[in-house]
């Protein structure tokens, strides 16, 4: 029986510092109106889960990085980070 290792990449994409995030700003404003004055900053972004089949962690890492740079994030305005977990 062949065991196919499976990896789960959890990817977060947010605006880079200095890029206006109108949604984040609006949500922040709304929270202030609701009395949550302790909130100092909000970053809204995207979250993706990507399942990869038949690759090890070492193989997955550069591939996911490439996907982020090529497609998921526009690096002119967005930054990304991700974690990799193996799935049973």
């Amino acid at each position: 029986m062949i065991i196919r290792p499976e990896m789960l990449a959890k990817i977060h994409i947010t605006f880079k510092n200095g890029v206006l995030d109108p949604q984040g700003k609006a949500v922040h404003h709304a929270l202030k109106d609701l009395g949550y004055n302790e909130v100092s900053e909000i970053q809204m972004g995207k979250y993706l889960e990507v399942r990869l089949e038949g690759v090890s962690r070492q193989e997955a890492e550069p591939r996911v990085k490439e996907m982020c740079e090529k497609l998921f994030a526009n690096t002119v305005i967005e930054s990304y980070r991700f974690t990799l977990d193996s799935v049973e």
Partner: protein
Amino acid sequence: MNCGVVVFPGSNCDHDCFHILKHVFKLHTEWIWHKGDMDLSRFDLVVLPGGYSYGDYLRPGAIAQFSTVMKEVVRFAESGGRVLGICNGFQVLVEAKLLPGALIQNNTQKFICKTVPVRVENTSTSFTGECADESVLNIPIAHHQGSYFIDPDGLSQLEENRQVLFRYCGPAGEVTDEFNPNGSVGNIAGIINKGGNVMGLMPHPERCADPAWSNLDGQLIFKSIINSLQSGVSA
């Protein structure tokens, strides 16, 4: 002169651009389907129209940049061909890195459809040659993600090279925050590449170029392109 209008899944101003080129300016115009092998070398002008290519999913233009046709558009642009990206077409051009910067959500967070004044910033290009210096054109915008962003270094390069072609302004040409409809850096509405052959803008010149309307300001942009090509001036 041969014109091609690219059709991505989700393009929706493709018919409008086609109509203006073919029926108003009487130019030979063809559709360019987004997939399949193609050679764009027979075209003098390739237009990337407005719309929601691939539903604008992920980011406007993000998926379209990887379509088959975009590889050819890049090759076409690199060999000096004229490329005009309008609205979603502009978004595709920045995603494909044919133009610098990015287009993000309007600071109003709403879709905006209305006619706005824009000031022509550089009339020595093949996309603006028919416009008078610092003239104000009234052109409709219709977008949700049209706020132009570029970092300060990129901006100063754009300014230095006179790559900014259009800025949002007031009726008398005032470039101020009050007349910035979407939060664009420097009120930028349209830019050109360094090579002078690729132009992207958020306003829709094809929406004010048909004699059925009294406002024909958009014609100046099309006429500029046509004249520069017909007079054989290279970009």
